């Protein structure tokens, strides 16, 4: 088996540089690559383009990169819950490309799957479709959407093995599997790193072929955004 293990987050992030395009898994604060984000905040890199469904909150997740002004452009579907984001966006410091969530997910998958473009009905007739090709299929209008081209993808899984196979837990799966497919270099941090043979091959969510580097993460905070109980 091809071994993908790197010894820590520092090694996992070798090669990240200013001006790059990144994908970061997670929905809200659920399933975000906490270790990778913390390490990115430590690096002296900026002018990043970050593709992530959300932008974290002020002091956690991608919000930390925003605080340090490391992000030039966000590509997301929803960016509420973040005052610093709002300030930078309204002042024009931050470029924001808002994309329907399903289109974002499918564009990530397309990137990894070698599909350069596809048609979706989402956003037809709205400003999202402005400047894009549109087309009628069976009487319904669709918009042509394209793949991304990220240098790195950072994802977070529940369990992973040394060959890079990943299993996610609950709704922490979200964007992680498609982003894992899409990175030229995909870095996976996992709560539990195991030897090959310990994961059932029939239950792998992300086959190891998509993962270039894997490491055992630590100190997961797994913050809850909206704690609701019965």
């Amino acid at each position, binding site marked *: 088996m091809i071994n993908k293990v790197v010894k820590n987050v520092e090694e996992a992030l070798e090669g990240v540089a200013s001006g790059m395009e990144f994908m970061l898994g997670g929905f809200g604060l659920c399933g975000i690559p906490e270790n990778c984000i913390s390490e990115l905040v430590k690096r002296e890199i900026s002018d990043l383009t970050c593709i992530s469904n959300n932008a974290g909150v002020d002091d956690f997740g991608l919000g930390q990169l925003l605080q340090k002004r490391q992000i030039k452009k966000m590509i997301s579907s929803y960016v509420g819950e973040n005052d610093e984001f709002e300030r930078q*966006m309204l002042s024009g410091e931050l470029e924001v490309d808002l994309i329907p969530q399903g289109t974002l997910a499918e564009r990530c998958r397309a990137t990894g799957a070698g599909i350069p473009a596809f048609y979706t*009905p989402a*956003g037809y007739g709205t400003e999202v479709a402005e400047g894009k090709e549109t087309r009628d299929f069976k009487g319904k209008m669709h918009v042509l959407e394209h793949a991304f081209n990220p240098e790195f993808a950072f994802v977070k899984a529940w369990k992973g093995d040394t060959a890079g196979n990943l299993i996610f837990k609950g709704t922490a*799966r979200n964007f992680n599997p498609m982003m894992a497919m899409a990175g030229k270099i995909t870095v996976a941090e996992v709560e539990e790193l195991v030897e090959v043979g310990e994961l059932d091959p029939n239950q792998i969510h992300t086959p190891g072929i998509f993962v270039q580097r894997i490491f055992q993460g630590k100190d997961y905070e797994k913050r*809850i955004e909206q704690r609701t*109980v019965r």
Partner: protein
Amino acid sequence: MLDKNQIAQRIAQELQNKWYVNLGIGIPTLVANYIPKGIDVEFQSENGLLGMGPFPIEGTEDADMINAGKQTVTILDGGSLFDSAMSFAMIRGQHVQLTVLGAMEVAQNGDIANWKIPGRMVKGMGGAMDLVASAENIIVAMMHTNKRGESKILKECSLPLTGVGCVKKIVTNLAVLDVRDNSFYLLERAPGVSVEEIQQATEGNLIVEGEIPEMKL
């Protein structure tokens, strides 16, 4: 005049047996509390969850189990978990039979605006554009007028659109409306609300045919 819970209650009457349903944030979420007896439905949460159950019992909440509103939730027996591409495959592929969502404005041609107010902070459309472009049945839960008393049931939307020609039914605090033939058809009045009040609160083309019954809740 209905309160938010009553709007949800009235919408719940539209649920049909064996439907998969996506409920938006706000009033739509409350619909889950009023599922009619004998009706089996499953709720889909677009972040990657089918068979969404109630909020967890205190102390059992799990950071890895949230809904599209980022609230901690549970999953019922027979539910399933999947990634966001699969989730929107369900939505775009019309496997989800009903979408219930809120709106800032609805136009008589079925256009909906619910994600952006020019000059104000834009938070994003999330999954709303995929949902309205795809669902065969879309019910909008909304107040008939804004805080200044102006109609939100319009000839044309003034705000940036979320989707075009897609809304089929609206339940407001005042009325139940069908949207078709470039018009709003008044189907039911909220208890104690007159046809005239509804006409006054509706800027778009309102069609009133025959006696309009009061809603039963």
